[in-house]
């Protein structure tokens, strides 16, 4: 698989390590009333879809940026690559 890095252009997927579902960006609030349930959900449960999947890849052997890759789990086709930093910021993180 070739991941089209937003800053570096097309890079081989073997330069990256894989973390998992991009929902891992949305870490729950540890002080909330339902924190135990929310963290169980966050840490252990997955949608695991057959089809389009948004996921986190880390460019370990490159510029060490985190990417959100939209990839089809049935065909391995990559339709979109974003910097995870940008995705997190548009969701109101790290302001």
């Amino acid at each position, binding site marked *: 698989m070739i991941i089209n890095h937003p800053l570096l252009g097309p890079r081989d997927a073997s330069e990256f390590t894989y973390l998992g579902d991009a929902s891992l960006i949305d870490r729950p609030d540890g002080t909330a009333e339902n924190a135990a349930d929310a963290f169980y959900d966050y840490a252990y449960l*997955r949608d695991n879809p057959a089809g389009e999947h948004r996921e986190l890849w880390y460019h370990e052997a490159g510029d060490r940026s985190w990417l959100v890759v939209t990839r089809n789990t049935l065909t391995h086709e990559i339709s979109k690559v974003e910097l995870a930093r940008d995705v997190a910021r548009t969701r109101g993180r790290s302001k």
Partner: protein
Amino acid sequence: MRYSGFRVIKEALTGHKGWKPVWREPDPKPHYDVIIIGGGGHGLATAHYLSKVYGQRNVAVVEKGWIGGGNVGRNTTIVRSNYMLDGNEPFYEFSLKLWEGLEQDVNYNAMMSQRGIINLFHTDGQRDAYTRRGNAMILNGADAELLDADQVRAEHPYLNFDDARFPIKGGLVQRRAGTARHDAVAWGYARSADLHGVDIIQNCEVTGLRIENGTCLGVETSKGFIGASKVGCAVAGNSGRVMGMAGMRLPIESHVLQAFVSEGLKPVLPSVITFGAGHFYVSQSDKGGLVFGGDIDGYNTYAQRGNLPVVEDVCEGGMALMPMIGRARLLRMWGGVMDMSMDGSPIIDRTPVQGLYFNGGWCYGGFKATPASGYCFAHLLAKDEPHPVATAYRLDRFRTGRMIDEKGAGNQPNLH
């Protein structure tokens, strides 16, 4: 029809005209006591034990394609019980004991071959870890034996003992481990289940689960609705999709594991061998091909094929362990989709939906577990309580903090 040596001779003398199809092709009945989704090794084993041991006669197995066409037809056929943790080892040892009696039990030649497995170690720390694991195995009634480098050399002279980075210091052996003919396991269980009255319904895809007021009433399929008092799901690899029909999210990701077979060679490997310094395991099939594999690819996928970086990594492992493998040509390679769970261990349990039961999360160790998985799932379906050796495989163990993490890798499925 019972299979026996006499039967083979009789058929040989009469032109092989007496052989019959080994299971029926029934149409689905409107209602069953138990429906098992998934006609793979685990589903068929469940049907066998449910009908033969637990006396359930009104049982169906529904399968999307043909039986045995999923992971039971795609694995590297290794059978062993060399686990360490309390939640696992009694279960896998129970499984190995069932393997030892499987062919007599189902009256089918599964080519079970107890040729042994050796896990090599390359450092003092690894020796200590394997000593501990061997002791845990012995405490649970399994067999284990620690060999030093000279003893390993006597049995496996072709290994790369004096590698500069990963010299072989010895190995942990389980003599009762081995390999079995994977397809025959599925067919043998299917034939036995069919003989005990189980309807095996092929080319019947489950498209939905009918759930009303929190109770599962049956399955919607490509052949119409089939009612059931209990529905058991044994579709590892696709668990997320099927249980998703019940609105459930699982502690599981689907990943692809690749496997490889070389061209046929004369007998060179006396047992199953695993490399301790990289992820590589190899055995030799009865046809002579070297059957080997390594790591999963490491990203979510439902495609039954992987990518080249893992091919390279696996072959590098093989070359580091036994340089002679470089002279063999690769004949075939393929991928299978695994349920990778959050702690590397499986799940056999009830679900929050009444009448819906789940068996999955086998990671890439499902084949060796086939008999015990079927037995314990049948026990759960028949008696509504977990089998004594499978009590740790709870669906909610991640919520309650009772993980069974052999590797200690945490909730990162691609590291298990």
